[in-house]
């Protein structure tokens, strides 16, 4: 599987993260999104006329949209991440995959505006971003009250991966994550999972590693 990838893209990161969790072999092909604008170049548009990343290529299959790519990779290499095969979990996973697009369109756009100077209606993006984070926070509260530690149920699924990166990176776009304790606790539990990998902007949890020996803590 080849992933057309940009290291700073949260949507590409979702695929890299899932691939790490499930141990799927993923060959990364770096796309010069910024400053090169390679995703709009003629050769790239032949692969994906929408000019977006991530794009997954697996033999003759080409998939665009992170939600679809996540679904494919999970189905092929880690079906647990699709959630239990029940209507409720299927429905929930689908809901949060769709919600992930709202996060990209709001928080994602605010971030590329603030960081890379990409054009955006920044006030509208931030306002939508806050609305989305509040919904995510309320959903996590209710999930806990149902006895679920993760968005779609008792175990992490694509629902969590779809929402995690933008929930962490919102401050890059001028949206504080301080008001959301449930989001904080949930992101922490994802970051502590085995085979979690970071992306630039999401730091390692150093508390998971003991202080080097010889110190007096």
């Amino acid at each position: 599987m080849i992933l057309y990838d940009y290291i700073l893209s949260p949507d590409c990161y979702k695929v890299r993260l899932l691939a790490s969790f499930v141990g799927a072999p993923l060959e990364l092909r770096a796309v010069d999104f910024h400053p090169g604008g390679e995703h709009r170049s003629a050769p790239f548009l032949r692969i994906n006329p929408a000019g977006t990343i991530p794009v997954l290529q697996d033999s003759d299959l080409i998939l665009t949209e992170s939600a679809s790519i996540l679904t494919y990779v999970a189905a092929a290499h880690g079906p647990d991440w699709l959630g239990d095969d029940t209507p409720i979990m299927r429905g929930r996973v689908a809901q949060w995959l769709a919600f992930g697009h709202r996060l990209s369109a709001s928080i994602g756009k605010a971030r590329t505006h603030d960081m890379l100077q990409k054009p955006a209606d920044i006030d509208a993006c931030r306002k939508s971003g806050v609305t989305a984070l509040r919904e995510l926070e309320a959903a996590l509260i209710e999930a806990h009250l149902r006895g679920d530690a993760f968005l779609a149920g008792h175990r992490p699924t694509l629902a969590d991966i779809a929402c995690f990166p933008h929930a962490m990176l919102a401050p890059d776009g001028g949206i504080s994550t301080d008001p959301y304790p449930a989001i904080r606790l949930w992101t922490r539990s994802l970051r502590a999972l085995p085979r979690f990998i970071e992306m630039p902007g999401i730091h390692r949890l150093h508390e998971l590693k003991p202080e080097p020996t010889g110190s007096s803590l």
Partner: protein
Amino acid sequence: MTDAWTPVALARDLPRLGVVPLCVDGIDIALWRSASGRVAAWADRCPHRGMRLSHGFVRGEALSCIYHGWSYGSEGQCLRIPAHPDLTPPEAIRVPVFQAIESGGVVWVAPKTTDAMPPAVGGTALRSLTVDAVVDWAASGFTLSSAVARGELSGVAMTILVQPLPNGRFALHALADSAAPAALIEASRGLEALRRQAEVALA
């Protein structure tokens, strides 16, 4: 006249090894809990290069700054500077410490030293949420005494601790008299409705 103690979080939202940024009386504070469960409220600023300690990490009973890993012990004194592992850090390197206490399932911070205790409250921790406007408590059927609002939302009796934030915003820390999940879900939705009502002028 501000009370000595400000409610800043629900205790369950501060797990061991957790660090949370807060603002109390205009002071930026890093609230954290050690491995043994001890809660501490420190100035949110590492004396080295001014990095927010709320981005830091907790190991054992110490909080370390994420920038250069400088670690600080229970009284705010610098214990270790990783760039100089054999150096005993000078006494002068320390972080200002504020009083923090857990009571009634709530974490309270006192910006100024006090002998007073925070108000007695209790109930099942529900959630905290931030409101970008003033809540008309009376209109919502709540009585407000200092930081403590008592009333009912969606048929559930609640205690809501009100924490003023900068720029006319408020954090609400809600406890419910009921522990039943269904009631708590209704109460959570009631809080969302309360916020929507308060913020209607902002839309």
